[in-house]
């Protein structure tokens, strides 16, 4: 095995308790097998950043008591309803939420990607999000022109988000650690912004993903990748574009069980602690 290819638990050892971890949305390649492994390990104190929203992954980690702070634009099970453990944790006061809006999280990670301290973003003025985010600043546009030339034109500045780790699941990587992400370019943004990136993949590609123009355009180069672990069906029960769809029946079962604290514990016993990593 090369240094970049590791088994799952070894790869996940990079994520320490208390780490800031950025994860993709449901449709973007969520590392669910890795998430279950982190819960089995008993990880705590995570600062979870969702780019930009999350579903089962955030709800599961919150319900398991692994998350102290979440920066997100939304946590929801989509067609399966509200995220029950997220809602319960917020109303109980046991979770710190840094409420954001989707493009704010994209932009703050892009700031980190560029190595600049902040990024401006339109919208937001007059939203209560600005009131509950004292780390965001409002300035007057220093380049105001046209109708705003005489002053005004307030604009929000977002501090860069620099995660310790980016964690996601992708279809394949080569043995050098080049990861094929296709059109899911936010995975590249996450990896560029984070200090270290851990990727689980369906399979290893024998060959060089950078060798052809067709595959190279969709590759996250190994430069950014700390560890790759093979985890077949690693996004299950969430989808992986081009590979498999959501497991609708399982998500309905999760929504029903996680509606209560007891039901959620039964879910953990059955599908997290009772199910070994692939």
């Amino acid at each position, binding site marked *: 095995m090369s240094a970049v290819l590791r088994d799952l638990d070894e790869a996940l050892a990079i994520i320490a308790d208390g780490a800031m971890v950025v994860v993709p949305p449901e449709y973007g390649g969520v590392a669910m097998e890795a998430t279950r492994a982190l819960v089995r390990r008993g990880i705590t104190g995570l600062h979870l950043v969702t780019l930009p929203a999350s579903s089962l992954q955030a709800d599961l980690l919150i319900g398991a008591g692994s998350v102290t702070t979440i920066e997100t634009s*939304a946590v929801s099970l989509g067609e399966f309803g509200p995220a029950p453990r997220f809602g319960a944790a917020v109303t109980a006061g046991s979770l710190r939420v840094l409420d954001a809006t989707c493009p704010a999280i994209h932009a703050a990670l892009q700031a980190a990607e560029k190595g600049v301290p902040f990024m401006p973003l339109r919208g937001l003025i007059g939203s209560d999000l600005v009131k509950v985010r004292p780390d965001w600043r409002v300035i007057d546009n220093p380049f105001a022109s046209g109708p705003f030339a005489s002053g005004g034109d307030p604009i929000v500045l977002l501090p860069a988000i620099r995660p310790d780790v980016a964690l996601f699941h992708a279809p394949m990587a080569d043995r050098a650690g080049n990861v094929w992400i296709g059109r899911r370019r936010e995975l590249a943004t996450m990896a560029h912004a984070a200090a270290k990136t851990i990727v689980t993949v369906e399979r290893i590609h024998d060959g060089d993903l950078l060798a052809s123009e067709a595959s190279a355009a969709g590759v996250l180069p190994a430069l950014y990748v700390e560890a790759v672990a093979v985890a077949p069906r690693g996004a299950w029960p969430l989808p992986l574009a081009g590979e498999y769809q959501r497991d609708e029946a399982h998500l309905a079962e999760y929504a029903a069980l996680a509606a209560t604290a007891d039901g959620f514990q039964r879910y953990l016993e059955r599908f997290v602690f009772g199910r070994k990593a692939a």
Partner: protein
Amino acid sequence: MTAGAFRDEELLASVILRRLGDVRHVAVGAASPIPAIAALLARHLGGGRPFVSLLSSERHNFFTDGGRELFDCGGQGRIDAFFLSGGQIDGEANINLVAIGDYAKPKVRFPGSFGSAYLYYVVPRVILFRLEHSRRTLVPRVDFISAPGTSPPGVYRPGGPIALITNRCVFAFDRRRARFSLESLHPGHGLEEVLDNTGFDFDRPEMVPTTPAPAPEHLVLMREIVAPLLAEAYPQFAASVFGAGAPATPIAGE
């Protein structure tokens, strides 16, 4: 369904279709299956235009630069219409997707603001929809402003709401006056019912028209052309409303 009869969802989609007007690009969020019906029908009727981006779809989504492309696109004015909802919506079209009660210790927590605190400002035609029309949802004042209905002069705001569509009626929104007016009542719904179930004040003409029924040819297209497309992006919704099955792809896991 017998000819002439229509589902509530089909009526609402036809209202949205009329409201879209002449647009080049319509984007539809993950929680908006009824607007998706309208957008896909508009695309079919226009022979491929407007461009339609269904954010929860792989097939009906042409973005290739990751999740940020939608927002960058909107910031440049390249999205003409979008759809938003809210746990609460008030009479000035402020929307709340965050919480009921005190933000620090809420009674009810909603998912979060999603892209509303940006797209509400930059997309010229935002259509609000809320299928539970009650005093619980349509309130005098939202508890948390995810995104405001209007902005004062001096704030960059090329976009905003044009209408609010509910299960009982359609309201038009006047941005200058920051006020809704009742535009039409859906068949089978009355003015007293709307007054009883709306928590904010609104204007209304002396005679409130009835929301027109969907055109029969549009109903056929919704059921035969649009419903199968919808099943890929909104499988639960498509199955429960149209009985359209999700594509037969093997499911992962156990």
